């Protein structure tokens, strides 16, 4: 089988996996509805019975957001790893998710997003942009893997602390409990409103990120070589930064910070696509969607009625993987 054919097969398999998990996600929930009934209710246009309401207004937005946020995390993880040429890069570890969370928290708990709904994704986006810029500035021109990760850790802690502070200071007695949501992420009872709010930003972000695929291939030869081959490094940087900020910012604004998906998925898929970042991007997006949908199905199956947060599951799988990755790359780091 040729290289291209194998790659196509991989994409088809991943897409099929994501589709199956999407449908499964639609059929899992506290209300025990049969498979046939739930699918029928999903397409029921005439009467707004309880089943149709559950399927169309509760489960469908949850599944759509799972798909889109997973794709966002997988894609941005792959782009960041390629662009920073750092195996440990991903939105959560670089502090992008945490600062986006902080932006969203400020928008929601001050009441700003009630007055101006678009303020929510925009504030999260602004938070994400700050994170990417700070991490890049810290890394500098010759920044090694270690500098970037350390800057990310510092930024994450700071953003998490500020988020806690903002929520603890809120006069609303429930706010302090919601620190968990913003740090671990959840898709429980999200609605179509959230989909419409986040989807445009995520799609624009994806378009930007997809655009850097070719340049990332050339970047594997090194920055100087890529520049000499006509890659506009500033354009790549702008697209990578804004694309990540827009998509991860929007994702975080509606679901909180979800870690490790962007780290694990590109690493798992890299062996199957050869060393070509441009091929890794679509595969990673589909893989990320599958992983997040699977995690969101599991939180409902493992602990029904307990509202387990997504980040708990992704960290149980992701953190040991991260340790293993650090172990493997420690020679390069030190």
């Amino acid at each position, binding site marked *: 089988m040729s290289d291209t054919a194998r790659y196509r097969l991989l994409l088809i398999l991943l897409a099929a996996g994501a589709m199956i998990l999407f449908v499964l996600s639609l059929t899992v929930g*506290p209300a025990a509805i049969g498979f046939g009934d739930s699918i029928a209710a999903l397409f029921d246009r005439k009467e707004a019975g*309880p089943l149709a309401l559950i399927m169309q*207004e509760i489960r469908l937005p949850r599944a759509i957001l799972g798909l889109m946020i997973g794709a966002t995390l997988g894609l941005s993880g792959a782009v960041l790893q390629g662009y920073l040429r750092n195996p440990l890069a991903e939105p959560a570890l670089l502090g992008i998710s945490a600062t986006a969370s902080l932006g969203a928290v400020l928008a*929601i708990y*001050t009441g700003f997003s*009630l007055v101006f709904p678009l303020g929510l994704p925009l504030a999260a986006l602004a938070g994400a942009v700050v994170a990417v810029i700070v991490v890049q500035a810290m890394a500098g021109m010759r920044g090694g893997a270690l500098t970037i990760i350390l800057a990310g850790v510092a930024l994450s802690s700071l953003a998490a602390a500020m988020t806690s502070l903002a929520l603890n200071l809120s006069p*609303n007695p429930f*706010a302090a409990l919601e620190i968990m949501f913003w740090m671990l992420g959840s898709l429980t*009872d999200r609605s179509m409103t959230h989909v419409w709010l986040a989807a445009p930003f995520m799609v624009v972000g994806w378009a930007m990120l997809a655009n850097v695929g070719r340049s990332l291939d050339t970047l594997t030869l090194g920055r100087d070589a890529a520049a000499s081959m006509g890659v506009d490094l500033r354009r790549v940087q702008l697209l990578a930064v804004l694309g990540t900020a827009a998509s991860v910012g929007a994702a975080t604004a509606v679901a909180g910070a979800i870690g490790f998906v962007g780290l694990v998925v590109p690493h798992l898929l890299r062996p199957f696509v050869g060393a070509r970042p441009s091929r890794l991007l679509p595969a990673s997006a589909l893989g990320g969607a599958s992983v997040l949908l699977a995690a969101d199905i599991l939180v409902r199956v493992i602990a029904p009625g307990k*509202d387990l947060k997504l980040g708990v599951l992704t960290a149980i799988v992701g953190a040991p993987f991260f340790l293993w990755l650090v172990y493997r790359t420690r020679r390069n780091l030190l």
Partner: protein
Amino acid sequence: MRQGRAIRQRPASGARSFARRLALAAAVVFTLADAAPAIAAQPPHRVVSMNVCTDQLAMLLAGEGQLYSVSYLASDPSASVLAGEAGRYVVNHGLAEEVFLMSPDLVIAGTYTTRTTVALLRRLGFRVEEFAPVNSFADIREHITRMGEILGRQEKAAELIAQMDAELAGLSAQPPSRKTVALYYANNYTSGAGTLVDETVKAAGLVNIADKLDLQGTNQLPLELLVLNNPDLIVTSEGEYAAPALAEQGYVHPAFKALTAGRKAVNVPAKYTICGAPFTLEAARIMRDAAQEGKAQ
């Protein structure tokens, strides 16, 4: 409800480390002066209450000048029914130092909050009476009786109980409508069997959805199940807070809005159900009236 109370009172327990330091200092100073007042045959005349529920019971029962201080929550209109009257008393925040300086002859506290303060005050020799959260009307009667005995106001207590029983009898004299009702609070919480709110629902002649679903105590009712069970009446408990939180996003979810569109949803302020007292029956009246209006439509 219970959850809401726990959150509100968190600031009070925030002074834990301070209380511990105070304990050390106090242990040294006050071993000489045995501050324990004799458990007097005389009723106490300088009473400090540190819990929003005991605050209100004490306000209802205490004689003129007997109650000295109530907690800061007693004057919070979203938590306390008697907020208007609380201004007559000195405010405390459940801190040992504060209460110590008031030199009360009786301290009343709840069993769930200000634990370290209670332990410390006991060590300092104060008489502390604790009241557990209320889970039924029987508990309310018991608490009123006990509070009456503690304050030496048995007659007033008996009067209050008789009044409450008369109101309860009035409610149960009407034929029960048997309409289904779902309690839906912030963060999807609901009250099932074994809670005061569940008894209140029954007193209003209604059927609690949580009982059908076998939800015990204060438990989560997922939005999906609320939609699926399609109750006749939805009882919310929206607080009037100065800032929004995700906890109340359930009330603006499109599925919730579609469910309550053209149907009766009624808001029962949390202050009636946070604490068990005769005024809890007001919650039953609100629910029953809302259910009747729904029938008329």
